[in-house]
């Protein structure tokens, strides 16, 4: 191939950008599916029992033991996100939606950016803040604090 011919070939470039709200929501839902199918299996009877008591969509009653079980289920969920992001830089949902963690990849940063999973105050406030921040700025508040980003890489042909 001569130098002239090379100039005529289409060129590709990789663009790394912050993942969109839809892509991130898709990844999160896929992760929830994985958690539901595999990790929540030991808690299936508990979840069925609680679902039976669900009264109006928000109000639910539980015993103290059940409360501890629910908390531990969230701890397992938290561990899922932290371990995958720490060891692989992305969760299963992120792999399937082609997004990955970018920036500060220390354990502390990953623990912080996923702390919205924890079901108690003040972390529970981020259940509202994070989706809104990601929708408008493509970056969650906890991502700002942990100096991390969730990126999507795509190839463009020029």
């Amino acid at each position, binding site marked *: 191939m001569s130098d002239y011919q090379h100039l005529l070939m289409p060129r590709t470039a990789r663009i790394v950008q912050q993942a969109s709200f839809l892509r991130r929501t898709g990844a999160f839902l896929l992760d929830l599916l*994985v958690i539901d199918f*595999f*990790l*929540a*299996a*030991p*808690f299936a*009877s*508990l979840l069925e*029992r609680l679902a039976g*008591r669900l*009264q109006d969509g*928000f*109000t*639910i*009653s*539980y*015993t*103290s*033991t*059940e*409360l*501890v*079980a629910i908390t*531990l*289920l969230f*701890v*397992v969920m938290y*561990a*899922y996100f932290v*371990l*995958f992001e*720490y*060891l*692989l*830089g*992305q969760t*299963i949902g992120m*792999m399937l939606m082609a997004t*990955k*963690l970018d920036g500060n*990849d220390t354990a502390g940063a990953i623990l912080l950016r996923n702390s919205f999973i924890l*079901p*108690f*105050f003040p972390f*529970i*406030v981020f259940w509202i803040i994070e989706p809104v921040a990601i929708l408008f700025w493509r970056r969650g508040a906890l991502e700002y604090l942990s100096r991390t980003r969730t990126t999507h890489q795509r190839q463009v042909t020029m």
Partner: protein
Amino acid sequence: VKKAKEIGMGQRIWTSILILVALLMLGSFFALLLGTEDANANTAIIKISGPISSDEADGLFSSGTSSTEIIRELDQARDDGMDAIILEINSPGGSAVASDEIGQKIKELRAENITVVAWIREVGASGAYWIASSSDHIVANRMSITGSIGVISSYPEFDEFLQEWNVSYNRLVAGDRKDIGDPFVNLSESNRMFMQAKLNRVHGFFIEEVARNRNLSMERATALADGRFFLGVEAKDVGLVDELGGKEEALAYVGRSIGEDVSTVEYEPESSFFDDLFGLVGKQREPTASELLQYLKTQQSSAVPLLR
């Protein structure tokens, strides 16, 4: 730590499988630890503490107990297949209607062969005693306060105060007895007698209930129902409680009654997403003066007959 791009596909898959297996084992361990205890539980412990009302306790002053909540927990215990229920009582009583509602629900559960034990701690008086008397067995601490079988209706009266300060109170009433309980109107002798008759009637229901529940004659129950309170040890002597003791004695009775080892699970008031979200903030806040006044107004100054 290797970045995602530095890890090959094979290693990525194996790492993912390893993480999932590790987390599955962790979850199974947790579930086994808790699930076993929950699955084996045959006795529910339900707390009745503070003033008893029929409404759901609201936010800031949620230290009381509502009959709606207790009945929900009793139903839940039945639906969860509990063989026995221990009522942990620490209440001075409250609404006659709420006490009756809980008492009737307890009887309903007893008819379904669920053993109900009342465990009176500091106080199990008046309406709380009504509830306790509906159970199969009453255990009380020897120094606890119980009994107080009577009815009270009280409220402050400000009409002379208003006159003294030359304040007029516009009162438009259709029906002579419509404003009974109005703190700005002097209670006439006729209305006082009318009100007293209602209290006597509620008192009669209370005495009948205690007599029936405790297998006492009406005369005996009436003699004990002058509103006095008894220490636990005195209540045992007159037949208002069955046993002196605490949780151990209550559990021992349940064990004898259901004929198997007792494993307990504690039932708690229902919680919602918003309770969890803002509960911690709310609990740390001190009540404001106006909230305190509102609370006192609703809790202390009521013409409604109360058992306490």
